[in-house]
Structure formats: structure tokens, C-alpha cells
């Protein structure tokens, strides 16, 4: 009955959009997009044991790939397919040199790569510079145009289901067992013949592809891209979501993305009430990210989902 909880989760998630208003549908779509990127990041941090502070660069690469293809009149569907591919390729290219780094060095290297990417995009005329790409078309599949929020909600749900499926197949495969060995004891894994470097690169590329797919959908949904849409803070937000839910756990990634998005959204709603100062939404969301991250790391170091599982096993 292992398939039952995911099936129920998909059904519940699919039943929600018809009941949501326009603003709430936007939250639903953005939540799903974060979830896709966080599933990938959680795999990377959980199995490769590395902090990446540059996951949003792959969201940006996916988004710009889809956006540039759309601007140059390529079929939107091609853009959507190209987004994860481009992100994965970029991950392989930068991954070969930087995945030799460990711990804080990799954290800074991924952060540096994102800053370089943002700076390059900001200066690049072919990518619209700091103003960005505007007037992107809606996504259309075989002549059918997706021009309503609700349609994007289902597209995103499909994307989350797809990334979750790919991630769980990867974890359960022979490769996945190698990855688990790698996560707990890299030296032992290497000694027993696990190709450590190749596997690390594989997880990095897969996690980038997920973020790239999220970026591709984002481009068509919002219809506008700028370097400022993918700040370093977005990467940190992904890390917060992954750590809060539990690293190396797909359910944890989904829960973390949902929890953080909903809490921040609730606070933003509260902070935009009449009479609240203009800076209240950003102040509250920064404070929430920070406090959740610190409290979870110090008191629930494995994250919420793994902690709940442990509790259930030991009554």
C-alpha cells in the first residue's frame, strides 16, 4: 500500500484549485513551482550531503531558456521541454569543477555562480539586460492555449507529480542505493565501487533539471522575466524549505515548501491589512524564514518529516 499516501495527496491537491480565488491560485502555482525546485535540492543536500546556495540559478536558466525560445517564435512546448534540459546541461558543465568542493566551499561556490549568472544576465542585451524579457506568450500545447490560472495550477501539479515520481524512482533504483551509501559514508561507498563523482554529478544535474522545469513553467505563467526575479534570497528560501521539511526526503521537501509558502502568505496577508506599515510584509517574511531555519536546525536537525517517522517507530 505504499502508493496509497501519494495517490491520496495527488487527489487532494487536484481537488483544491476549483475552490480557490485568483490570488489564492497564484499562491498555489508558486507553491508548486517551489516544491519542484525543493524536491531536487533536498535530494542534492540529502544524498550528496552538500549545501547549495545556488539552486535558483537553475530556475533562472530554465526560465530564460523557455523565455528566449518563446521570444524568438519557437513553439512554447519546445521551450518548456528545453528548460530542464538546459538547466541540467549547465549543472553538468559547472558541476565537473565545483563538485570537488565540500561543505562551506561548495556553499560559497554555488552562491558565487548565482551572483555571476545574475550579473551576466543583467548586462546581456540578448536577454533584455536588467529590464528583462517582456511579453512572453502563454504556453500552448498543440494549438490549445493555457491562458487561465487554473490551467497553470494543474500544469504545476503535473510537474510536481513528475518530479516526485522521477525522484522516488531514482532513490529506489540501484543508483539510489549507491547514493544512500554515498550520503552516509562516502569513503566506504567509494571503496565498494560506487562511482562517487559520477553519482554526485547525476544528482546535481537532476536537481537542476527540476528547478529548470519550474523556471520554464514560471516564464509562461508570469510572462515576464528579469534577473531580479531570481535573487540569492530565492535560493536561500529553497534551502529553508528543504531543511525545514527534512533533507533527503521527498515528502519533507513537499511539506517544507507548502508550510513555508502558506505561513509566509498568511503573514503577508496580515501585514498588508490597512494600518500596517509598508515594510511589514518583507520584514515578517525575512523573520519567519530566519526563525524557522534556526529553530529547525538546532532542535529538529533532521527536519520535520524524518523526525515524525522516527517518533512513530519508537513508541
Amino acid at each position: 500500500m505504499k502508493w496509497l499516501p501519494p495517490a491520496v495527496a495527488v487527489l487532494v491537491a487536484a481537488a483544491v484549485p476549483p475552490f480557490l480565488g485568483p490570488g489564492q491560485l497564484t499562491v498555489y502555482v508558486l507553491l508548486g513551482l517551489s516544491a519542484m525546485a525543493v524536491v531536487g535540492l533536498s535530494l542534492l543536500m540529502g544524498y550528496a550531503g552538500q549545501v547549495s546556495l545556488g539552486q535558483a540559478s537553475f530556475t533562472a536558466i530554465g526560465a530564460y531558456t523557455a523565455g528566449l525560445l518563446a521570444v524568438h517564435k519557437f513553439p512554447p512546448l519546445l521551450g518548456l521541454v528545453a528548460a530542464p534540459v538546459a538547466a541540467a546541461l549547465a549543472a553538468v558543465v559547472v558541476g565537473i569543477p565545483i563538485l570537488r568542493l565540500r561543505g562551506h566551499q561548495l556553499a560559497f561556490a554555488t552562491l558565487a555562480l548565482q551572483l555571476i549568472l545574475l550579473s551576466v544576465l543583467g548586462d546581456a542585451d540578448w536577454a533584455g539586460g536588467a529590464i528583462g524579457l517582456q511579453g512572453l506568450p502563454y504556453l500552448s500545447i498543440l494549438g490549445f492555449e493555457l491562458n487561465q490560472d487554473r490551467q497553470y495550477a494543474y500544469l504545476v501539479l503535473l510537474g510536481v507529480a513528475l518530479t516526485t515520481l522521477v525522484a522516488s524512482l531514482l532513490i529506489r533504483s540501484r543508483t539510489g542505493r549507491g547514493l544512500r551509501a554515498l550520503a552516509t559514508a562516502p569513503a566506504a561507498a567509494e571503496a565498494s565501487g560506487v562511482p562517487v563523482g559520477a553519482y554526485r554529478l547525476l544528482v546535481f544535474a537532476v536537481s537542476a533539471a527540476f528547478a529548470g522545469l519550474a523556471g520554464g513553467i514560471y516564464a509562461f505563467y508570469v510572462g515576464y522575466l528579469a534577473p531580479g526575479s531570481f535573487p540569492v534570497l530565492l535560493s536561500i528560501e529553497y534551502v529553508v524549505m528543504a531543511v525545514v521539511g527534512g533533507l533527503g526526503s521527498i515528502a519533507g521537501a513537499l511539506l517544507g515548501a507548502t508550510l513555508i509558502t502558506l505561513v509566509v502568505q498568511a503573514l503577508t496577508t496580515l501585514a498588508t491589512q490597512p494600518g500596517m506599515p509598508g515594510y511589514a510584509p518583507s520584514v515578517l517574511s525575512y523573520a519567519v524564514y530566519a526563525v524557522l531555519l534556526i529553530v529547525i536546525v538546532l532542535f529538529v536537525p533532521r527536519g520535520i518529516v524524518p523526525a515524525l517517522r522516527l517518533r512513530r517507530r519508537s513508541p
Partner: protein
Amino acid sequence: MAELVQYVLTGIGVGCAYALLGSGLVVIHRVTRVVNFAQGSFAVLAAFTVTTLLAAGLPHGVAEGLGVLLAGGAGLLTGLIATGKPGTTPQAGLIVTLGLGVFAYAVEILLWGDQPRSFPGLPGTVAGVQAHYLLIIGVTAVVLGATALLFARTDLGRALTATAEDPYAARIVGIDVPRMGLLAFAAGGALGGLAGVLVTPVQQVTFDADVALVVSGFAAAVLGNLTRPGLTLAGGLLLGVVQALVGGYWSTSYQTEVSLIFMLAVLIARAGLARTALEAA
């Protein structure tokens, strides 16, 4: 020729700020093994505090001193949260300091808003260079010299060094290791604050300037593998001068890339060397 001298001097000035920030990272990392991601926030916090104190009518010098003191306090607090709970690993400590850096955003926007801020530095020019750059260089030389003396010549410095070399042995000879860690965090905070206070008159500071600052500080410190203060100073100066030359002769829009690519190159070369050494052993 005059141009070159000008670029080099301004580069050394900015590089000194990177070196100060990087030295803060080194002090904290050596003693506690934590890489402090909130290091850039200390600089921003100190700089913003000085703008408020100056506006309140405090004289220069006093305002800057109080700003640095506050950054030292923020460092102590960061250390308490990131290393205070027994059993916190350095990796967890890094994520906690990342969280504290984001928390600083909330505090900074609440108190000072999200617009860039600055305050006047030392007025006048010397040989075409703003005198303030020379002040940065002088202050950095004195402070880093004093820090080196403190570590080499005082009991406290020896205790800190002992903790950095071998925490277990340090505890056996009666050194209070957690307290040394907190002291390192306070010193690191003050060094970061000093960097912020010195650099603000020549570069405006915003609440999210901490990312660029911490990356530059890390780039400087990584030359010495986050343990060698001398190489950190060299790294900072090199970075500052190369940035200034690129900005002067080519384009200011490539300055960030230059320092980042420099850092990546050092990191990757180091990882390659470490691997070769491991295989040779």
C-alpha cells in the same frame, strides 16, 4: 601613471575592507570551525548604526567606535546561537549563521528601511585619491597588526590559538573552549563591523549588501584556506587591486565577476591540490 597609482591605492583601500571582513571569518573559523555566513551583516549593521548616531549629532570617531562595538555584540550573540547549544556541528552552525543573516534583513529594514545609506568620510584628496582610502589603509594596518600581537604575545591570544589548534588538548590544560569560541565570534563581529564602517563613505551600503561583502571576505580568506591571517590580507589586497584595475581600465560592470571567478579558481585549484596530496600519501 598617475591613473595607475590612483587605481592601485583605491584598490588597496577597498581590499583592506575585504581583508578585515575575511580576518573576522578566519578568527571565527579557526577557533570554532564555523564558517560565519552572517559576517557581512555585521558590516551592514555597524554602518547603519553609524548613520543614525551621526544624524543624532555624535562626533565622528565616537559614532564609528560605537558602531564597531555593536557589531562585536552582534557577533557574540551570533556565536551564542550558532555554537551555544551543545552538539551543534560546524555544518549546522553554518546554516544557523545563514538564518541569522536573513534575520538581520528583517531588523535592518524595520529600523532603517530598504534604501542605500552612507555617511561622509575623511574629506579631501591626496595625489588624486580620496583621503578616506588612505585612512582605511592606515586603520587596517594598525588593527591587523594589533590583532597579530594579541594572538602572539598575550595569554588570551595563546589560549585562542591553542583552542584553534586542538580544542581537546586546550580543554585538558584548563582553557574554557566554549568561551574562547564566543570571544572569537565577538572579535569577528568587531572586525566585520570595522570593515563596514570604513567602507561605507566610499561605497553606499544597502541592507542586502552583506552577500557581496561576505563573498568578497570569503574570497580573500580562502586564499589562506580560512586559517592563515597573512594570506587573508594578501588575498583581500589582491582582490581589491584587481577589481579596481578592471573597473578603471575596462568596465566597472565586470568587477563582481572578477572577484567571484578569482575565488572559484582558488577554491578549485585548492581542491585539486588536496586531492593530489591525498593520492600521493
